[in-house]
């Protein structure tokens, strides 16, 4: 029983990152879904991204 087969038994619950129309279509099919209001990692500048990565 691979983990993919486990998925086939579960109720689909989706995180949608990107086109909102995909999210709306999923809602029309009564699928539990959440739309991520995604923005590029740090909107300001590369410096902050590098600082964050140093702490990772």
């Amino acid at each position, binding site marked *: 029983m691979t983990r993919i087969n486990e998925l086939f038994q579960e109720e689909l619950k989706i995180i949608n990152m990107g086109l909102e129309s995909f999210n709306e279509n999923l809602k029309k099919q009564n699928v539990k879904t*959440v739309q991520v209001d995604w923005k590029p990692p740090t909107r300001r500048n590369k410096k902050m991204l590098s600082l964050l990565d140093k702490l990772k």
Partner: protein
Amino acid sequence: MVLKYLIRENSYYDSVTLMIITREVKKIEGVKEVIVGMGTELNKELTGNLNLLTPELQKITPNDFFISLDSVDDNIAKKAFAFVDELLSKKKAESEDYQPSTFESALKYMPDANLVLISLPGKYAVREAKNALLNDKHVMLFSDNVPLEEEIDLKKLAKQRRLLMMGPDCGTAIINHVALAFSNVIRKGPIGIVGASGTGIQEVTVMIDKLGSGISQAIGTGGRDLKAKVGGIMMIEGLKALQNDPLTEVIVLISKPPDKEVARKVLSILKERQKPSVVYFAGGDPEVIKEYGSVPGLSLEDTARKAVAIAKGMSIKDFTGFTVTNINKIIQEETKKLNKKQRYIRGLYTGGTLCDEAMIILSALVGDIYSNIPLKPEGKLSDINKSYRHSLIDFGDDEFTRGKPHPMIDPYVRQERILSEVKDREIAIILMDFVLGFGSNSDPVGEMIPYIKKARKIAAKDGRHICMISSVCGTEADPQSLIGQEKKLKEEGVIVMPSNAQAVRLAAAIVLSRRNSQ
């Protein structure tokens, strides 16, 4: 003159907005006349006087809002209405559902999520896909232009964590009967599908549904899974999963012709387990498939028919003909309408795999086919905007879609192309596919009708009849009504065939019968 109208039942807009609309739309160069107002008797009467009235407008009530617009051509009308929509739908600050800002916070908000659907721009999509896999979530990656090495890393990581990594550039999948991204609504049934091509899966699943059977799962792997470097990682994981899945009785595999080695590896997986399987390698060698005990599909339709036959315990027969009874009568009638110089077929496709299948069938019947995605390098069109002899165009290919929405959503490019195609005196037939389902345009046929009418008028000016043939890839349960879409085409005299393969074969038959009757 192009008349366009918009009706919003029972809706009210503040009069300042309406005044701005009237004033600004009138200023748009090329707009002849516009009338904006509520559907009162007098307004309708006045609209009639300005011959801006349509049957639909006649039916509205005083509490319905309408705009009727007469402009030089359709682009102007489209521009005007885009402006109007923007003003009318200036979104009030409604509070919809909560939208977390990052993947981590989405996870916190919905910890039991099991699939992440990603359609972000390529260079960010990989980072988020890896993030999802590291959090043990299956992934469907819709975004394209992802470097091959990144795809391989992602698929290796997914395999190691025994997760699905569908994509990149995977537009179609139906998991637990949920249509993801561009997919159709298909009945439940015993057939499980793994496909490396979006519209290929759509055509096969739609055919299965039309034949009264259904599917258990439809897994997409993205177009490059069977390339040598990728080695069919996800195709193999998908096949194993279907083999272990109690609800799947027949397995169908769809792909463009794969790398030889990878084909053997994948077919041997099918060989090991006892479940029967049908394999369509888009023009690949059927013998290799038979060698491994799988049934070769000769077309997408044939693949579906064979899978349904196995599922129903019926005998398996190749199918390369027509299911339409009076097919010969149609061929004769159409041939008669064509003049001597009309010899070529022009295919205008929104689905890549449907275009491939059309080229495979046509090149065997009528000779060289030219395209922006040719089967053989010498078939490449020098200018993709200018067809040559028999030409089939895939408007979904990168060259057409960069920076523009996919043709299945926005028909604009194909609308323009049909008008230029009919100007060519040597063309006999125009082939068009219409793909329904979630993700596609809400009225794909409706969008093309005005252009089909105009195309016919252009040809009729110098006495030419253009034979138009189409197939509609959709099911009754799709958001767009299949019957409604087919009816609109028939009303325009377009011949609607039950499958892409039969539409293409009909085109070939007419062209050949025209050549022979010379």
